[in-house]
């Protein structure tokens, strides 16, 4: 596996560099439609292979610590392989969905090119064992997502993209500033070396932590910094909305936050409390704003903020418990956070794909103009119903289990008020999705829906794939929990990331 690690970055990069050339040849669009799922499938196979491998470190260019000059490392630990799995599964589904959906847009090869660049960025970010490398790949993913949001070239899309771009680049600047302070304090860029050499808490380190919190919080759309998300995510083409809401905010925001605060800077009580405050704020405010929306995709975007709040809250609780040395509660909270992260990726992508399918067939995404979709588009409506039940936490779908774990962890940690709030937010999510089901699925077909027909097979396949994941991942949790989540949690709790990198160095 160690040998295959760079290919996770190199293969999508190769595809991305080739695709603009393919645009020049005749039948370029058809060729790109053939190439894209192939590349995505190869990546998926590689990632599934990586799940079973042990932790490895790959030193780029052979600059291992023995060689006397430290290079950039790629680190595959259980946390990264978990994130890689989530990213590549959702990407595969999004590509399948795009094959038909994107026929309505011009310049398809450029779309796939940007898509693979975004995938490269996320894969590279997840594998990065070097703080600056993490920043570079974060920028790759972010910049391609800015361009993808504006891909339709309509007025709102351009505007949303500009807003997203401005706020996103401010966030990146804060992250880079934080990296500068860290470099000043330690003289290292490798994550393991930084965490070894970091001086005791002083003002500069706190400042760097605040900058990281701001920067990654902007990327993860935590509530005071969420303004770009409800514009950017609905404006993008549907598969891109699924990617943005499903994995991009997690990889760029939450994953990077976890890595930096748990593995690099070391968790402290202040940061844990800030995370908890940010998480609960976005949970509550996100859902309150979501309830009043009438645009399908905007509603989903606000729910993304709210659901990411759950994850960040659980992370904060885990951090607090870690500082207080209650490791069992910490790992329970981390299990909840990671499991909910995965589930959210599955059901939110599915919801966005369903909204895209509904828009594809009917031409509208306003809830009031939709209606009676179940009579005309049975597959889409079935998937939509599964996803809606998942997100609102109805057993036995996956959303229920992860929310349950988070709530139990919050209560065990002794935050009864927060726990009650979590339950309340879950209830409001349910209300909001009852509204969605009532307006979109049930009732008589409206004038828009009357002429609609079921979407083509590729799109159906993508939705069914995600719906199956939604159904089985909750039920089968006890079976694969030790395989994925336990070790991923221990990466954060016991700082395996550092151990792996240093062990590879000898």
């Amino acid at each position, binding site marked *: 596996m160690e040998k295959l690690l760079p290919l996770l970055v190199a293969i999508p990069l190769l595809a991305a560099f080739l695709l603009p050339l393919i645009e020049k040849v005749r039948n370029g669009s058809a060729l790109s439609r053939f190439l894209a799922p192939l590349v995505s499938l190869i990546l998926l196979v590689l990632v599934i292979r990586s799940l079973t491998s042990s932790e490895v470190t790959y030193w780029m260019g052979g600059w291992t610590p023995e060689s006397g000059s430290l290079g950039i490392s790629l680190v595959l630990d259980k946390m990264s392989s978990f994130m890689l799995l989530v990213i590549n599964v959702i990407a595969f589904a999004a590509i399948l969905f795009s094959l038909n959906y994107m026929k309505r847009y011009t310049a398809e090869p450029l779309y796939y090119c940007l898509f693979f660049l975004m995938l490269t960025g996320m894969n590279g970010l997840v594998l990065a064992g070097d703080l600056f490398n993490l920043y570079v790949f974060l920028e790759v993913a972010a910049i391609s997502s800015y*361009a993808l949001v504006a891909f339709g070239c309509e007025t709102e899309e351009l505007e949303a993209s500009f807003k997203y771009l401005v706020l996103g680049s401010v966030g990146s600047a804060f992250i880079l500033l934080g990296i500068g302070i860290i470099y*000043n304090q330690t003289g290292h860029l490798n994550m393991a070396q930084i965490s070894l050499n970091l001086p005791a808490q002083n003002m500069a380190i706190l400042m760097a932590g605040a900058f990281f919190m701001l920067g990654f919080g902007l990327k993860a759309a935590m509530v005071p910094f969420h303004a770009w998300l409800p514009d950017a995510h609905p404006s993008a083409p549907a598969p891109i909305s699924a990617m943005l809401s499903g994995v991009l905010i997690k990889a760029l925001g939450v994953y990077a936050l976890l890595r930096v605060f748990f593995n690099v800077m070391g968790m402290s009580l202040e940061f844990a409390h800030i995370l908890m405050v940010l998480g609960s704020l976005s949970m509550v405010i996100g859902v309150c704003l979501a309830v009043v929306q009438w645009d399908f995709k905007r509603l989903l975007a606000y729910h993304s903020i709210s659901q990411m709040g759950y994850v960040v809250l659980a992370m904060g609780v885990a951090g607090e418990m870690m500082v207080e040395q209650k490791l069992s509660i910490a790992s329970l909270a981390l299990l909840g956070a990671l499991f909910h992260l995965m589930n959210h990726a599955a059901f939110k992508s599915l919801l966005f794909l369903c909204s895209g399918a509904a828009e*594809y067939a009917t031409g509208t995404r306003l809830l009031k103009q939709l209606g009676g979709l179940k009579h005309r588009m049975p597959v889409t409506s079935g998937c939509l119903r599964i996803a809606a039940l998942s997100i609102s936490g109805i057993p036995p779908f996956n959303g229920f289990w992860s929310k349950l774990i988070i709530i139990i962890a919050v209560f065990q940690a002794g935050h009864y008020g927060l726990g009650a709030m979590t339950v309340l937010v879950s209830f409001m999510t349910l209300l909001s999705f009852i509204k969605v089901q009532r307006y979109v699925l049930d009732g008589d077909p409206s004038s828009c829906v009357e002429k609609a027909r079921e979407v083509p097979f590729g799109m159906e396949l993508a939705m069914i794939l995600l719906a199956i994941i939604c159904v089985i991942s909750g039920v089968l949790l006890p079976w694969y929990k030790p395989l994925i989540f336990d070790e991923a949690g221990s990466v954060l709790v016991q700082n395996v990331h550092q151990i792996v990198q240093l062990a590879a160095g000898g």
Partner: protein
Amino acid sequence: MTIYIIILAVFVIFASAVAVEAKKLLSTVISVGAAGMALSVIFLLLGAPDLAITQVVVEVLCLVWLIRATGEERDATFETQRDRFILAIGLGGGGVFITLCYFAFQSLVKFGNPLMNLSNQYLQNGLEKTGAANYVMGVLLDFRAYDTLGEATVIFCSIIGAYAVIRKIGRIKDAGHDINS
């Protein structure tokens, strides 16, 4: 040495402030160019000729782009109602930020004495191992070449993004849902 740097930094601050508050967009763009040129002199003083060249060249290109974007007959001037309230909030927030930074930066490593844990490794045997006498290039394209691949990817993807954004027709209109029905 520090004093020259401080003088030039004051010039950069001044030029940026002019750029921000100028009434004409053309003067904005040109002042930011001036700030960039001063920055490149700072880079030169700080022992980074590579960066100085990069900054100058990039600055020229940015200037040309921004002037193109600002356009010849487009609204090069625009009316801003100077909102004193926003200005006050901005100044206040900036003041708080700078004060915080002032205290935080007391615990930074002293200016002029970097730790260089990582870079000593590079400096000690960079030439022998990479064959590049320019150590920055050695770091950029050998020790940290993977970062440079990422950097090349960044510029590639922003350019592809720019191409994608300025293409004339985004969606194929007549392929609406007529095909399905």
